[in-house]
């Protein structure tokens, strides 16, 4: 067992005491561990964990590791069809989630572990190693792909972030972001488990007034939010209690907004971070409170130990950001993972276009064309296209961001006939998460396709 895995697993009882939430039911870690032990799954078996944000979520995640299985955190809102697709694509040996959800999977047996049902699938051979961790990538509905990390790679990233953000065992961190995302799971939760501080898990729904109340009441010193939440706080003029450290990551955050947040008297330290799931996730950080204003449009400089390179820069210095980091995933898996995202010399291809100035500051220019951010959530338009193309009447689909951030899907009929777009919308609503359902579906003629 690796040192990091040992620290997390052996200190689970202590971690249990250092994680709080607002749930009425709180199972004991030892009972959850026993529940997974009784399943008798082979080491290296992957378990899909579809649970809401809670302390119990983390206890399940640790217990799955402790019995030699591989946790794969997923949104609790996944539809049954999406779960079945993930099971096949990622060799999932069991699904843990709301009891009613696991019953809908029609597996031969369901165990109760804590407040969750756990439904093992027979005859799924272990596809991973003990202490591996699966992290779903953007576009989880259709892509069914994941990064294979290890506890060590994720722990390296979490402790590097702790060091960069000066987190100590005196800090109390508030988690309002989903635990199935790397920021909430790795940066905040693993970071706190390894750093010795305390973790308070809340929501959803997010409410800015409650956010402020919690910071005050729970004596929160550290928190991480998305740019969407940060912009909401700015727009509403929300006044928060004093917060030692606020981190923002997950999408682009404008320099003007950095300056506006810094001007607030209640934030001591403001960190703008950049990362991606494949990298484990954080790569760079801008400590905006101690940086000159002319770099507020950057995502800072790479962490110590992380090498970066701009691939094939154009005359303006813009090229794909390549990263070599000890926290890179081992490989990508899943039906739609087309090749591994590494160069021959071991750099990770981020797919994001960047520049880097002489002082090392990285500036984001654009994202891969098939990734868009909607309502604060990243989504993969190619994944949506694949789901649309599962409809029997549709031969081809192309989804893109339209005017005013609308998500527009253009669809071509398989046989040229007129499509029932309302029926197609219903088809999509039952297969996609809510933010992935297009705002508009437009039928295109074959002639348009050929233009």
């Amino acid at each position: 067992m690796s040192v990091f895995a040992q620290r997390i697993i052996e200190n689970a009882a202590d971690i249990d005491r250092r994680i709080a939430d607002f749930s009425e039911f709180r199972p004991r870690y030892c009972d959850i561990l026993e529940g997974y032990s009784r399943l008798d799954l082979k080491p290296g078996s992957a378990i899909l964990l579809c649970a809401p944000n809670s302390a119990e979520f983390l206890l399940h995640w640790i217990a799955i590791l402790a019995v030699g299985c591989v946790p794969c955190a997923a949104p609790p809102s996944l539809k049954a069809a999406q779960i079945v697709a993930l099971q096949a694509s990622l060799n999932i040996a069991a699904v843990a989630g709301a009891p009613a959800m696991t019953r809908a999977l029609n597996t031969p047996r369901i165990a109760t572990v804590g407040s969750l049902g756990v439904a093992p699938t027979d005859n799924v051979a272990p596809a991973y190693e003990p202490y591996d961790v699966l992290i779903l990538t953007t576009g989880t509905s259709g892509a069914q792909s994941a990064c294979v990390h290890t506890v060590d790679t994720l722990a390296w990233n979490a402790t590097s972030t702790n060091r960069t953000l000066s987190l100590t065992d005196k800090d109390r961190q508030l988690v309002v972001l989903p635990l199935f995302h790397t920021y909430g799971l790795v940066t905040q939760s693993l970071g706190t488990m390894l750093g010795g501080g305390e973790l308070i898990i809340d929501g959803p729904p997010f409410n800015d007034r409650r956010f402020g109340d919690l910071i005050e009441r729970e004596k929160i010193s550290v928190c991480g939010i998305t740019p969407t939440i940060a912009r909401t706080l700015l727009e509403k003029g929300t006044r928060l209690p004093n917060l030692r450290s606020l981190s923002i990551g997950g999408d682009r955050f404008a320099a003007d907004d950095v300056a506006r947040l810094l001007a607030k008297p209640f934030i001591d330290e403001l960190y703008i971070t950049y990362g991606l799931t494949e990298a484990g996730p954080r790569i760079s950080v801008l400590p905006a409170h101690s940086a000159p204003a002319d770099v507020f449009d950057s995502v800072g400089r790479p962490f110590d130990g992380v090498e970066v390179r701009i691939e094939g820069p154009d005359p303006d210095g813009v090229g794909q950001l390549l990263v070599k980091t000890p926290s890179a995933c081992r490989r990508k898996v899943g039906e739609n993972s087309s090749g591994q995202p590494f160069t021959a010399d071991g750099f990770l291809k981020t797919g994001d276009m960047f520049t880097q100035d002489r002082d090392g500051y990285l500036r984001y220019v654009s994202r891969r064309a098939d990734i868009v951010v909607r309502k604060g959530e990243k989504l993969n338009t190619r994944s949506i296209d694949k789901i649309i193309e599962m409809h029997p009447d549709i031969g081809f689909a192309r989804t893109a961001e339209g005017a005013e951030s609308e998500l527009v899907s253009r669809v071509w009929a398989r046989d040229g006939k007129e499509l029932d777009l309302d029926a197609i919308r219903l088809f999509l609503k039952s297969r996609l998460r809510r933010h992935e359902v297009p705002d508009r579906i437009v039928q295109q003629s074959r002639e348009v396709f050929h233009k």
Partner: protein
Amino acid sequence: MNEIELRLRDILIDDLFVERDIEQIQASDTFRGDFGIDSLGFVELKTQVETAFAITIPDDDFTPENFATIASLAQLVGRFAKTA
């Protein structure tokens, strides 16, 4: 279930596409734990409830406590329906 709770149950099935047997849904079921509603789902639930009952739920009432169960949300809706 009372009338408001039954309407909320229908919203879950018809508008949020929650995959549950409608007859098995209880007023005490939790949106997060039992139905897997996530952050975006709560925003949609709030919008659907406001439309269905012709009310406006202020941001300060958009809390995990009020949106915990069908019963707790029905109480909130009842409060605003009376004052509407």
